[in-house]
Each structure stands twice: as structure tokens, then as C-alpha cells.
């Protein structure tokens, strides 16, 4: 990986001679003091090259490059030898159950925690050695909202804008634009504590955009939001990506969200990347195998019917969606026949059978041998990093 840094960067700037007013260009490195002689009057003097905000260096069109990244918390390995790249301008999804290591990866890329081993570059800068430059180019929407409740929306944006050295007028304009983007102009001067969760999250997202980051990290951005706010945040994510060409790294445990938004998805489990591809290609992993999924509607569904299906060796998983609907995943080309035979034998009244397209859920099940939603609802205490809040349990009953 190439290590770009401003220390070796050559810049040329115009300087005016204080004596004769002659303007000439002098080369140098940022912040360097150079002794120069005026070409027109011969006056010697010192000039200081300005400190420039280093422009991002997208090597091979990659916004993020990670190689053999590892993070240990004591004896626990939260991230285990992870390598991948994120292309400039794409929405990249990190999908996995809670405690898989998604947030830890994000925190390392945001320079909030340092890797135990391995290298990561963000916008071309090393997250450890050049963390200051990395911070110039990133925005973070963390799981915990980064906002002060007693301050108004505008004051929150103003604070962070000033931490990024944005000039006053430009910042005011930027704040107005961002508030318009999420249709919150009316609420700009209200304190955050008076907002609903959905409104808070909108401000939380635009707060991360105040410095116009090239790379935006969204860590579980729709967690705990109602369906309407969830849709709004997803739409906003897509807009930011399209309109500003912002590279977005999104973590989620919701398969549908990743499928909907991401160009490429890395599936992560136990700190390891188990698969990484486009959603379509990931689904091919499953369709290439003999796993099939059906939705079956049985009007007289009872425990005896269910246990008979469950006892079939080809059935991999069985989910009862409601009182009459079953979701079945099974192995083998003749799985369908076997299941239907078994249902008939047990006197099941089959009303409808639907062959389901493989979903990311199937991919996940195929790759990890377990369902993501199982981890979501039953194992919501993360082993590493900041805690994840309690989740609502899925309404459906599952039988194995």
C-alpha cells in the first residue's frame, strides 16, 4: 500500500515581495520556511508555505484499503485478520449479527481505536500514523447519537463545523443546506431533547456531513427507528451517495437493508469476513447449491405437522410466520417432493406453496450455518466494544 503524506508533498505558491511588490512562485513543502531572494530587486527574506488540507489520495480508486486488520480486547479477538477494499463512491455494507465485529472495524477506520495488528488506510492515509488526515475526510454516524440534548440543532452543527475549521459564512450556508436536505429548517433552533427519535437521527446524520466528508460511516443508522423514519434515513443515505459521490460504509444486521442499499456486501461473523460480493452474486452462492426455500400455507397447521416436517433430514430450518404460514429451507433436489409427501401423510390441508428467491438471509444461513435473526433476538449482548441496546424480539416463533 502506498503511503501518501504531505511531508513529502511539493507545493508551489505565489508570494509578493514586500519591498518592490514583485510576485513570484516559490516551491516548498507545506508549513516549510524557505529563504528566498526576490528576482526583481534582490531582497532576501523568509517565506512560510501555507499548511494545506491534504487532499484525499484514492489509490486505485479505493476509498478504504484494509489488510490483515486485527483487534484484540484482552484475550478476545473482536476482529480477526480482515482484509478488504471499498471502492470510491460505493455504498459498502458490513452485514453480520451483533458482536460480529462490525462496530470495531468502523471504530478502527475512524481512528477511535487502534488496531492490534494490520494496516488500514482511509482516503489514502494510514489510520494510525496519519490519523489527523484521516479525520479530515470522514464523517461518523455512530450507533449512539453524537449530539448534545440541551443544545439546539443549529448549535450542534455549529460546534462541529467549527471543530473542522470551516469559515463562519461558509458554515452558516452549509448548515442551512443540510437542514433543508432533511427538511428540518423549522426545527433548527429547537433543543434536541424536544425531538422525536426519527428527527434526532436526521440531525445526527447531517452532523456527520458538516465537513463534506469523502467517506461516511453509518453504524446501524436505522436502529430503533419506526418504519417511516427508517425509510427516510435509507433514502437520505442513497441521496448522499448519489449527489455527492460520497463513499458510504454501512453496518447493519438487517439483511433487507443491506440488500436494498449496498453495492457490495461483506458478511462478517466472529470477527472474520466470510463472504464479500455484490448482493446478486452473494445470492448465487445459494442458488448454485441445492438449497431451496418454500413458503407453505396450511389451513390446519398443528404441532404434529410441524414436528413431522422438522424430523425430515433434508429440512434445514423451519419458521412459523403466523398461524397458517411456514417458511421452510431444505437441502437436496427432491426436498420439495419429500416435504409435500410428508404433509399429505399427516393430513395437512395445503392451500398454497410458493418457491422463494434466495435472500441474503439464505446466504447468511448457508455461510454461517445459523440464522442472523436468531443472534439478533437471542444473543443481543455484544461481546466486544460498546454495548448494543436491547432489540425487540421477532414475533414469529421458530422451531428447529
Amino acid at each position, binding site marked *: 500500500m502506498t503511503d501518501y503524506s504531505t511531508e513529502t508533498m511539493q507545493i508551489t505558491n505565489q508570494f509578493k515581495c514586500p519591498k518592490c511588490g514583485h510576485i513570484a512562485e516559490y516551491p516548498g513543502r507545506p508549513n516549510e520556511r524557505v529563504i528566498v531572494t526576490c528576482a526583481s530587486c534582490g531582497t532576501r527574506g523568509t517565506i512560510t508555505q501555507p499548511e494545506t488540507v491534504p487532499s484525499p489520495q484514492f489509490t486505485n480508486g479505493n476509498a478504504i484499503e484494509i489488510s490483515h486488520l486485527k483487534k484484540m480486547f484482552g484475550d478476545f479477538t473482536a476482529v480477526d485478520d480482515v482484509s478488504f477494499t471499498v471502492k470510491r463512491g460505493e455504498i459498502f455494507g458490513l452485514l453480520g449479527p451483533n458482536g460480529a465485529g462490525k462496530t470495531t472495524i468502523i471504530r478502527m477506520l475512524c481512528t477511535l481505536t487502534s488496531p492490534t495488528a494490520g494496516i488500514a488506510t482511509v482516503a489514502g492515509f494510514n489510520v494510525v500514523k496519519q490519523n489527523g488526515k484521516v479525520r479530515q475526510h470522514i464523517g461518523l454516524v*455512530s450507533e*449512539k*447519537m453524537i449530539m448534545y440534548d440541551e443544545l439546539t440543532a443549529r448549535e450542534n452543527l455549529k*460546534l462541529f463545523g467549527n*471543530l473542522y475549521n470551516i469559515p463562519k459564512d461558509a458554515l452558516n450556508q452549509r448548515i442551512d443546506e443540510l437542514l433543508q436536505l432533511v427538511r428540518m429548517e423549522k426545527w433548527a433552533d429547537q433543543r434536541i431533547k424536544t425531538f422525536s427519535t426519527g428527527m434526532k437521527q436526521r440531525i445526527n446524520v447531517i452532523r456527520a456531513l458538516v465537513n463534506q466528508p469523502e467517506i461516511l460511516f453509518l453504524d446501524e443508522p436505522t436502529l430503533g427507528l419506526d418504519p417511516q423514519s427508517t425509510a427516510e434515513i435509507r433514502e437520505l443515505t442513497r441521496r448522499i451517495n448519489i449527489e455527492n459521490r460520497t463513499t458510504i460504509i454501512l453496518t447493519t444486521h438487517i439483511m433487507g437493508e443491506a440488500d436494498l442499499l449496498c453495492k457490495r456486501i461483506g458478511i462478517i461473523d466472529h470477527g472474520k469476513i466470510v463472504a464479500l460480493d455484490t448482493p446478486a452474486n452473494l445470492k448465487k452462492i445459494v442458488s448454485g447449491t441445492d438449497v431451496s426455500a418454500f413458503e407453505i400455507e396450511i389451513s390446519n397447521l398443528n404441532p404434529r405437522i410441524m414436528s413431522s416436517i422438522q424430523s425430515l433430514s433434508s429440512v434445514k430450518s423451519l419458521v412459523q410466520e403466523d398461524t397458517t404460514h411456514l417458511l421452510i429451507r431444505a437441502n437436496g433436489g427432491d426436498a420439495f417432493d419429500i416435504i409435500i409427501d410428508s404433509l399429505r401423510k399427516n393430513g395437512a390441508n395445503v392451500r398454497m406453496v410458493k418457491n422463494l428467491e434466495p435472500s441474503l438471509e439464505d446466504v447468511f444461513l448457508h455461510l454461517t450455518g445459523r440464522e442472523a435473526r436468531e443472534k439478533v433476538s437471542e444473543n443481543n449482548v455484544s461481546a466486544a466494544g460498546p454495548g448494543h441496546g436491547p432489540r425487540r424480539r421477532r414475533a414469529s416463533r421458530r422451531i428447529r
Partner: protein
Amino acid sequence: MGMKDVLRHSLWICWKDLLEFSRSKLRLVMLVLMPLFMMVMIGFIFPSASSISNTPIALANNDTGSLGASFVQQLEIINNKTGMMKLSTATNFDDIKTKLQNSEVNGGIIIPENFSSNILAGKQGEIIVVIDQSNPQMSVTIESVLSKTVAMMGEQMAIHNLNVTYNVSVTRASSMITPYNVQFKGIVPGAPNYFQFVAPGIIAMVVMMALMTGLPHAISYEKDIGTLDGMLAAPISRLSIILGKVMAQTIRGMIQGFIILLLAVVLFGVVIEGSILLVIALIILTVFSFVGLGILITSFTDKEETATMVMMTLMFPMMFLSGVFFPIQQMPWYMQDLAHILPLTYATTALRKVMVLGADVPAVGTEILILIGFGVILLAVAVPMFRRAMSK
């Protein structure tokens, strides 16, 4: 990153902290109430010898002769002038003991049966003072007040006897009996009260508390709710974060310090003898000497709860050992040694010297140097620790 940027960012963080603080009405009220309660409490709960008045004392006159009665008469005359005691009669020691146990009286005086006969026989007349040792503060005070009163009455009796029996003039008689007369002359004009003693200490203590509790609390709280990540992910120096927080807490602590100063002057009649500018400079120096300690606690504790526990453990010994409430000289030598390694001791001493004694800069030079030393050493340890803690 230049120092100018570090300072500018820290000012914004300070602005944010103060804005947050000012939005909470309860916190603003507490800002004024806390120092007020403290002054009132501390000023009135600690007794001193001169503050004794109308203390109930039981008097048992068991004398068979007449001299006991005249003793009581004289005692009443003296007491009417000073108003120290509220005398009541009792029959004997057991009666006084019961009254003490029932908290009806704070002490007792017994004139024994043989009082008159002893004096008439040319012996000393005995007076028994009954005290309650379970209340050490009160018994010590009563002991000293009553023994002084009795001694004084003895002297007057002797002078009277010399005057009457041997025709010695009253002046000569007093110089014969008490050849030495002690006069007290304080260096502080007027009569300083306990507030005068305690106000400088409370100012130093409140400033210390602001930094030792306020700072770790402010940072660990933001860590807990996750907002600290926003600042850590921004291209600002770690120094800006801690500096901004220190500024905000310092301003808060100073405001409280000045409220105390104001209350002390306006409500409690404290007179500032020294330069007010030097007082302010010393308060700022106190802040400087405690900043490092505050940052150190912040770096060691990851949660708000832990921070509070560590602070409480450190603060209480500091409060009581640093001469804020009790003079250090009263303590046993090992406690005095301990007090001398606490920065609060020097801050309190310096402030007291300036406020009460009107000392100038050279007079508190040692304290100033020690406070600067504490500040520099603690900061040199604390800042690298903080940087490390923030990048864990």
C-alpha cells in the same frame, strides 16, 4: 496543528459546555445554593470558647456555712455581665448527673459542705466542676470557662482580703497576687470570626471540587453517552478537548469561588485585608495545581460511576486534612506530614494569609512555588496518560 488551532477548538468546546450548563436551571440554582449552604453550615456548627452564651449550668450549694452563699452571689454578678451561663439549682452530684444525662444542663458546679469551714480554718475552699466527657467539645469549653471564672473570683477575694485586713491598696494588692498581666494583641484589626478563618479554605476547596469532580464527570459522561466519539473523530488535538473542558470547569469553579467571597463579605462580615487581585491570582493558581489531578483521574476511569467513587475517596481526606476547617497545627505530627503533601493545604494557607493577614506576594512566595510545582508535575504525568487513554 498550531497552538492557535488547539486554543480555538478548545474555546468552542468550552462554549458548548457552558451553554449546556446554562440551559439547566437546576444546575444554575445549585451553583449559588451550594456555596451558601456551605458557608452557613460551617460558620455555625463549629463552637468556639467565645461563642458560649446562656449555657445551662446546674449549681448545687451544699455548704453549711455562709461563704458558699456569697460565692454564689458573686458568681451571679459576674454571669449577669457576661451572660455565659444560665444557672439553675440542683441538690447534689447525682442530681447534676441525672440532669446532664437528660441533656437539661451542659455542666454543673458543686460547693461542698466543708467550703466555709475550710476557708475559715485557713485552708483552700474547694469548688467541684462537673463535666460530661461524652461531649468532649462542650466539656473542654465549660472546663476552661468555669475554671477561669473561679480563679478570677479567687483573685478578687484575695485582693479584697488584703485591702480590708492589711490596708493594702487595691492596685498594689492585685500586683502582689497576679504580678503578670497578659494582654493579647492580634495582627488583624477588629475581631476576626470563624468565617474569616474558614472562608479562604472554602474558596480553595470549591475550586478544587470543580476540577476534581467536574472534569472527570464531564469527560466520562460524554464517553458514556457516546458524544466524545464525535470530538475524537474530528481533526482536533486531544489537548483541545481537555483544555476546553478545563476552561469550562474552571469558569464554573471560579464563579462559585466568587459567590463565596461575596457572601463572606456581604453576609458574614469577612474583611479582605490583602489585595483582591492577589486573591484572584491565587484562585487561578489553585486551578492550575489541580488540573493535572483532574485529568489523571479522568484518564484512569472509564465510567462515570468509577470516576465519582475515585473522586470521593480522594476528596474527603483532602478536605479535612488541608486545614480548611481545622488548623493543621492541631493535628498529630503524622497527619501534619500528610497534610503537607496535599496541594490544597498550600492553596488554603496562601489564600488565608492574603485574605486574613493582608500578606503580599513575597510572604506567600513559598506556597506559590509549591503550587506551581504541583501543577507542572501533575500535568507532565497526566497529559500523556490522557492521550493514551483516549486512543485505547
